[in-house]
C-alpha cells in the first residue's frame, strides 16, 4: 500500500513499480524487467559487478553514506569461510519510513539486490533483518521469498546459472540500537543487541564471524537498477560523488507528508514548498532535520540554498542521514523537541558504554525537569556541556546521535530555552508533532 500520492517532481527509479497493481507480486516484478539484472550480473565477473556499483557512485542509504562499491570490494572473496549478505531493515531512525515502503511495494527488488551482492562477493546465503515493529512486513517478505523459491529465483542453481543462494527473513525485538550494523549482527546471532568492537568491520568479520556485506534496504534495492541501466546512468541522476536518487520521508509540519524519490541534490526549499506543498496554515519554517533525528538540526536560515546531498549538508555541519526529513514550524517548542529526543535516546541506549548510558539518562532528566518548569539557566549550559562531552567518546555512534541534536538545540535555539524559563512557552498550532 502507498501512503501518499506521488509528486510530479519525483524521479521514479526505485519506486517505479509503486502503484502498479499487485506491485509486490513476482508476476508484476517479472513483467517489469524483474530479475533481469541478476541474469545480466550472472554473466559478469565479480570485479565487473563491483566496478559497475563503484561507477554508480551509490552511497549507503542507511545513514552513514559509505560508498557501496568500495564496501563490497573489502570482502575477502577468497576467504575459506562462507560469506553472508545482511540486509539492514531495522529502520529505527526517527522520521525514517522509506525502507518499509520499499519492502512492502517491491520486495523482489530487495531479493534481487541480495542475489547480485551474493554474486559479487561469492556469498550463498543472506538475512533480511527487519525491525520488530514491522511485523506485518514479515508476511509480505516471506511471501515474496516463497514466490522466488517457487519460481527458481532463490535456492539451488538459480535459473541454470549454477549459482546457489538462500535468503531468510528475521525480525528484531524492538531496539533502535539493533539498526547499528554490529549490534544487528549480534542480535541476528541471537545475542544481546550491543555493538561490537570494530575493526574488524563486517566485510571481514560479520555474521557468525564470517565476511559479510551489510547494507541498508534502499541500498540493495538500488543495485538491480544500476546493473540494468548502467552505473554511469545512475551516477548522472545525482551529484558528483553521490549518484542516484534518495527516498525521502517527509514528515512534521508539512501539507503533504510522505515518501518521495528525489534526485540527490534536490533543493531543500523546493522539497518543502513544492513536493511537500508547504507548511500548514502558512506558518514559517523554524527548524529542519535533514535525515533522521540523529542529524544536527538546521535553522530556517541554514536551509537557505541547501540541497539534499551529502556535501551540502556536511557544509552546514549536518548530515544527509537516512532521508528522514522532519519539518518544524515557527510554533514548535524546541524545549519539547529536546525532551522528546532525549527520551528516545535514553530509552534506546543499549547501555553498553558509560557516556551514552549515563549521559542520555542525565540529559533526559534535566530536560524533564526543565520542561516541567523547574529548570535554571545553568541547566542550559549543562545540557550543552554534557552532550559535548559525550560526543566522540561513546562506543558507537548512538551516543553521538543523541549528543548532536542536543548541542544544536541549545546552541541554535538558546533564546527559546531562556524564554521558557521566563514563562514564555510555545504551543504548537499545526497538529501534534511532538508528543511527550
Amino acid at each position, binding site marked *: 500500500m502507498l501512503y501518499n500520492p506521488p509528486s510530479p517532481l519525483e524521479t521514479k527509479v526505485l519506486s517505479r513499480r509503486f502503484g502498479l497493481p499487485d506491485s509486490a507480486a513476482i508476476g508484476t516484478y517479472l513483467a517489469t524487467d524483474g530479475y533481469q539484472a541478476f541474469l545480466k550480473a550472472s554473466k559478469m565477473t565479480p570485479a565487473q559487478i563491483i566496478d559497475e556499483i563503484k561507477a554508480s557512485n551509490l552511497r549507503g542509504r542507511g545513514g552513514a553514506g559509505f560508498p557501496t562499491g568500495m564496501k563490497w570490494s573489502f570482502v575477502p572473496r577468497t576467504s575459506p569461510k562462507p560469506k553472508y549478505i545482511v540486509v539492514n531493515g531495522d529502520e529505527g531512525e526517527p522520521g525514517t519510513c522509506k525502507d518499509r515502503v520499499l519492502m512492502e511495494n517491491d520486495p523482489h527488488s530487495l531479493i534481487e539486490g541480495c542475489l547480485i551482492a551474493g554474486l559479487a562477493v561469492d556469498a550463498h546465503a543472506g538475512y533480511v533483518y527487519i525491525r520488530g515493529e514491522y511485523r506485518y512486513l514479515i508476511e509480505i517478505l516471506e511471501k515474496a521469498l516463497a514466490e522466488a523459491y517457487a519460481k527458481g529465483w532463490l535456492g539451488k542453481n538459480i535459473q541454470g546459472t549454477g549459482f546457489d543462494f538462500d535468503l531468510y527473513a528475521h525480525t528484531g525485538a524492538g*531496539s533502535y*540500537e539493533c539498526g547499528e550494523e554490529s549490534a544487528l549482527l549480534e542480535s541476528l546471532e541471537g545475542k*544481546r*543487541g550491543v555493538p561490537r*568492537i570494530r575493526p574488524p568491520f563486517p566485510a571481514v568479520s560479520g555474521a557468525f564471524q564470517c565476511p559479510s556485506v551489510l547494507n541498508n534496504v534502499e541500498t540493495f534495492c538500488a543495485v538491480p537498477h544500476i546493473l540494468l541501466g548502467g552505473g554511469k546512468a545512475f551516477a548522472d541522476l545525482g551529484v558528483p560523488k553521490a549518484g542516484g536518487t534518495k527516498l525521502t520521508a517527509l514528515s512534521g509540519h508539512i501539507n503533504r507528508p510522505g515518501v518521495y524519490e528525489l534526485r540527490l541534490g534536490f533543493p531543500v526549499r523546493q522539497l518543502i514548498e513544492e513536493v511537500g506543498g508547504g507548511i500548514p496554515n502558512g506558518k514559517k519554517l523554524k527548524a529542519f532535520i535533514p535525515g533522521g533525528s540523529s542529524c544536527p538540526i538546521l535553522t530556517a536560515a541554514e536551509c537557505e540554498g541547501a540541497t539534499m546531498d551529502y556535501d551540502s549538508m556536511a557544509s552546514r555541519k549536518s548530515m544527509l542521514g537516512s532521508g528522514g526529513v522532519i519539518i518544524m514550524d515557527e510554533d514548535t517548542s524546541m524545549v519539547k523537541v529536546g525532551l522528546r529526543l532525549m527520551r528516545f535516546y*535514553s*530509552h*534506546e*541506549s*543499549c*547501555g*553498553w*558504554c*558509560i*557516556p551514552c*548510558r*549515563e*549521559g*542520555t*539518562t*542525565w540529559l533526559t*532528566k*534535566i530536560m524533564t*525537569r526543565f520542561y516541567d518548569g523547574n529548570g535554571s539557566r545553568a541547566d542550559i549550559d*549543562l545540557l550543552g556541556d554534557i552532550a559535548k*562531552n559525550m560526543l*566522540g*567518546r*561513546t*562506543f558507537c555512534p548512538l551516543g553521538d546521535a543523541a549528543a548532536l541534536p542536543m548541542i544544536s538545540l541549545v546552541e541554535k535555539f538558546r533564546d527559546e530555552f531562556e524564554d521558557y524559563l521566563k514563562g514564555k512557552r510555545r504551543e504548537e498550532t499545526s497538529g501534534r508533532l511532538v508528543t511527550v
Partner: protein
Amino acid sequence: MPDPVKFTIDGLALSAPPGTSVIDAAKKAGIEVPSFCYYEGLTLVAACRMCLVEVEKMPKLMTACTLPVAEGMVVRTNTPQVHTARKYMLEFLLTNHPLDCPVCDKGGECELQDMAFRYGAGESRYTETKVHTPEKQFSPVVFFDAPRCILCYRCVRVCDEGMGVKALGVVSRGVVSEIAPNHGDHLECDECGACIDICPVGALTSGTYRYQTRPWEMTHVGTICTHCSDGCKTTLGTRNDRILRGNNRDRSGINGEFLCIKGRYGFDFYDHPDRLQAPLVRKDGKLEEVSWSEALAAVANKFQQVLGEEGSFGIIGSNHTTNEENYYLQKFARQVLGTNNIDHHRTGDVVTTLDALSGKTGKLATVADLYRAKAVLVLGADLALEHPLLSFQIRANYRHHQAHVYVVTANPVREDKYAAAVVRGRDYASLAARLKAEPDLAILFDDSYKGDDIRAVVEFGEQLGIPVKYVPLVDRSNSRGAVDMGLTPELLPGYQPSGQPGLHYDEMAAADLSVLWVVGANPLKAGASRKAGFLVVQDMFLTETAAQADVVLPAACAYEKNGTVTSGTGELQRIERAVNTMGAKADLEIIGYVAREMGAAAKMGPWTPDAVFQEIRGAVRGYNVPMPVLVTGGAAGTTPINGRVAADARPDLVRSDHNGLFASGTLGRYSKILNSVVESRQSR
C-alpha cells in the same frame, strides 16, 4: 618474532611487538592509563571509555585498550582533552552510583574511589534522582547490589571465559541494564567467587565477608589453601584472630588470582563451634577434658609401657599436615617407636609414576606447564570439579594459546566444550596419530589409572616422539608431600626402600595393635569399631575415629601453623599462620611434646618447622630448593627421585575420594559455606 613497532607515548620513544595494545605498552613504560573494563587475560569490551588517549592524526580520542600500536604512532595520555574526558567519564559514572562508600565492603580498596580521587572532579553537577534497585542474593556466596555496578562486564567475562561456567549475563538495556544470574532469580555455578573478586566496586559481595570489616583493619597473610592438591595461594584477611576472607588479588603464587570456593571461602571450618579446644582423655568410658600436660603424659606413658612390653604400634598420618609434620611423624615412628607400621590415605599412584619415569628428567608438569603446553591430554579426571585450578589453567591455555585439549573420560566433563577431541572411556591410544603431530604434551591422570595402567600411559607418551610431561593427580593439599616424606611402610623419605614390611592403612585400622596413633585422619569414618588397645587421635574435630579414642589431642589447622606443603604437581610452598585457636596445637608441636615426655627429644631433634625443613632438605632429593624462592612465597618444583623405586608401589591401596567443588573430607563437613551451597541446591 616479527620486528618490533616503534612509537611514542607522552614523548617517550618506545617499541613493542606488533599487536601490543597502547594500554599495555603504556603500562610497561610506567604510564598509567586508567581503565575499568580492560582486564588482563579477558576479552576486550571497550565499554568504560576511561582509557581514552590522544593519538596524532586521529580526529577522536581513542580507546587505548583496543588500539594496537603502529609504526610512528604518537600517543598522548597527559593532555587537557584526555583529562577532561576522564573527569567526565567519572562524573557520568557517579550520576547513578549510590556513593554509599561508608558502608560498602569495597570502600578503601575500590577502583572507582581510586579513580575518582585521581581523575575525577571534586563535586558533581548531578542533582536528579538516582536509579535504584534493591540488593539481591544470587546464591549463598554471591550477593549483588545493582546500583553500585558500573557495568564493566568483568564478572560476566571471568565467569564465562575464566571459569567456563557462563552463569552471569546482562539483562535489560540502557541505564537499567543489570547483571543477572543464570537461573532467573538465582545462580547455579561453581560459587568460586571470581566474579566478586574481580568486581572493581562493591556491586558483587560475598556472603562470608560482606559487612564484616573495613579492609584497612585487616592483616593479610599469604598461605596455601588446605583443601585440594592444586596448591593455590590464598591471602587470608584477618582481624582480631579471625579469618574474614580469602583471595589472591596480588596474583602471587602458582594460581595467579584464581581460587575456587574452597580456597576463597572454605576456610570457615576453622572456627566451627565443634572445634576441639582442649585435650580429651577417656575416663570411666567417657572422654573428658583435661590439661595438655595430663593428656601428653597419658600418651607418653602408654607409649613407654607398650615399648617396654614390646607391644605393637601403628601410625596413620595425614595428607593435610605439613611436610615437616609428616617427616617428623615417620621419624618418630621409625626411630622412637621402631616400627614401619605407618601409612596415610593414598589418593594417587605417585610411586608408580615416579618409577615409570625413572632415568628421565623434567617429566613432571607444573601448574605453569599446563598453561604453556601446546597440547593436554586428560585421562579419567573431572578436573573442573576435582582440580579447579588445573582446569582453569588448561582453559586459559586454550583461550590464550589455542592449546589442543584431548579428553578421555568415562563421563562428560567441562573440558569437552572446547576439546580438540573427546573419547568416552579409556581408549586414549586411538588419539596416537593426532598426539604425535603435537609439538609437546602434558598428560594428567587420576586414580582410575594406577600401577600397570600408568606404566602403559608413560610408555604411550614416550613413544609419541614429542616432549611429554605428566601429572599424577592426588586429592589433598599435601597428598604428594605425604608420599615424598615417607609416610608409607615400604618407603622412607625420598622413596628409599624401608626394607622391612609394615602394616597398611586398612590393615592398621583392623589390626589388634597395642597402640594406634592417628594424626589428622579418619580411618574409622565408615563406622568400624576400633581394634587397637589404645587409640590416640590428633584432630581438629571429634571425628568418628576420635570419638573412639582414649586420648584426643586438639590439633591446629593449616591456617594456624607454619611449614611447607607439596602440591599435586610437586610444587613446594610455605604455609603461614594466620590465626590461632585457643587450646589447639600444631601437630608438629604435639609430636615434639610427646617425644619430650618420652625423653626422646634429643633423638628427634627440634620440632620447629624451620629446623625440620632443613633436615628434609638434606634427606629428600629434590627438596633442597633455593630458600629465597620459598621464603618469599614462591613455589619451588621438586622431583623427589630419579631412578627406580625399589619397593612395591601397592597401587591396590590407592583410592581417591573424588571430592567435588563443595566437598572436602572432614574439613568440608565442618565448613558452613560449603554446606550451605549443598543445602541450597537440595532445597531446590
